[in-house]
């Protein structure tokens, strides 16, 4: 989707503004993740990742991001962190694990980074 003219966003390095454009791009991915609120859907995904992603109509880019557990790529493909957090739960990743994965740090290094800002 092209969104002419309403580009009021300022550039914030390392930050993707989850707006209508991203939300539309990521709709299928976020919908799948939203449905992970229910245990039966988490089990469905775990039993057949590929089939489950196809059922929700994920794009090739979204599927590739999930296959490679690449959080930054999921965001690039329109994923919203609140919905993705439910997927991270299935992968047994903590919020600090997810932070480390996105910033090229180990979980411990990421925790130290947080602490350093005290």
């Amino acid at each position: 989707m092209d969104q002419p003219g309403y580009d009021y966003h300022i550039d914030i390095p390392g930050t993707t503004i989850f707006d209508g454009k991203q939300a539309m791009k990521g709709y299928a991915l976020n919908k799948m993740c939203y449905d992970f609120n229910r245990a039966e859907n988490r089990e469905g995904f775990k039993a057949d990742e590929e089939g489950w992603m196809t059922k929700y109509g994920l794009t090739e880019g979204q599927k590739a991001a999930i296959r490679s557990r690449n959080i930054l790529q999921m965001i690039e493909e329109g994923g919203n962190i609140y919905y993705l957090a439910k997927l991270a739960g299935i992968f047994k990743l903590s919020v600090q694990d997810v932070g480390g994965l996105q910033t090229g740090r180990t979980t411990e290094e990421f925790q130290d980074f947080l602490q350093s800002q005290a």
Partner: protein
Amino acid sequence: MAKVLGGITTSHIPAVGNAIQKEMYDDPYWKPFFDGYPKVHAWIKETKPDYVINIYNDHGLGFFLDRMPTFAIGAAHEYRNEDEGWGLPSLPPFPGAPELSWHIIESMVADEFDITSCQELAVDHGFVVPMQLFWPGAPNNPDMPRAVPISANTVQHPIPTLKRALDFGKALGRALRSFPEDAKIVILGTGGLSHQLDGERAGFINKEFDQYCLENIVSNPEELTKITRMELVEKAGAQGTEFLMWMMMRGALGDDVTEITRNYHIPISNTAAGTLLLECAA
């Protein structure tokens, strides 16, 4: 007429719920955080609110992108914390206060706020953790007030402006004070302070900006309405936009407030945790 006793802010990080369950109050990691709460507990014991307005933001349980409201108000007999995706155990339902909910909705729609009313609403950690912090054992606490959940959109831009959030609070305050019951009401503003979960900037925390917000939310909230939404993302982090809940709470308190207690600690999980108790002039 009802009386607004005051407002309490707190972070609502899911890990806090876990720490409460494990009673880690004296654990070195948790102690500086939980130390912020005894004065709040004492105040609640003393003032005994009848109703709690819980202003929080949903994180993908109660609402999805198919229908994303800017401001939603619960109007149900009870509210359940359903599974958010991690299989956490469900608590007994929180008792609602539908007659107060509808009073607020009637008043605020008349006041030109475009409310989404919710006669069913699953509430997530944003609502539940603060309840557990303030009323230990919630909802199974004999002092547990009946609740009205109010949620603002911080999932998807455009989010409401800081000015709109403060104005929402002012209209909410008018609604509460016109409720024709001799009742005592406390308002929670939950979420924040600075944090960012997503992107290469994940882990971002901004102590200086948080202190600026903490200072001004007490004595000069109007000053904070000058912050644009993109500035808020830049300075508070992508999820630090939850500060809007604090603005909504603050607007409802009126001009004359006394700060009873304040706590600020970095980090809890990925977040700078802030707690504030503001009492309204009698």
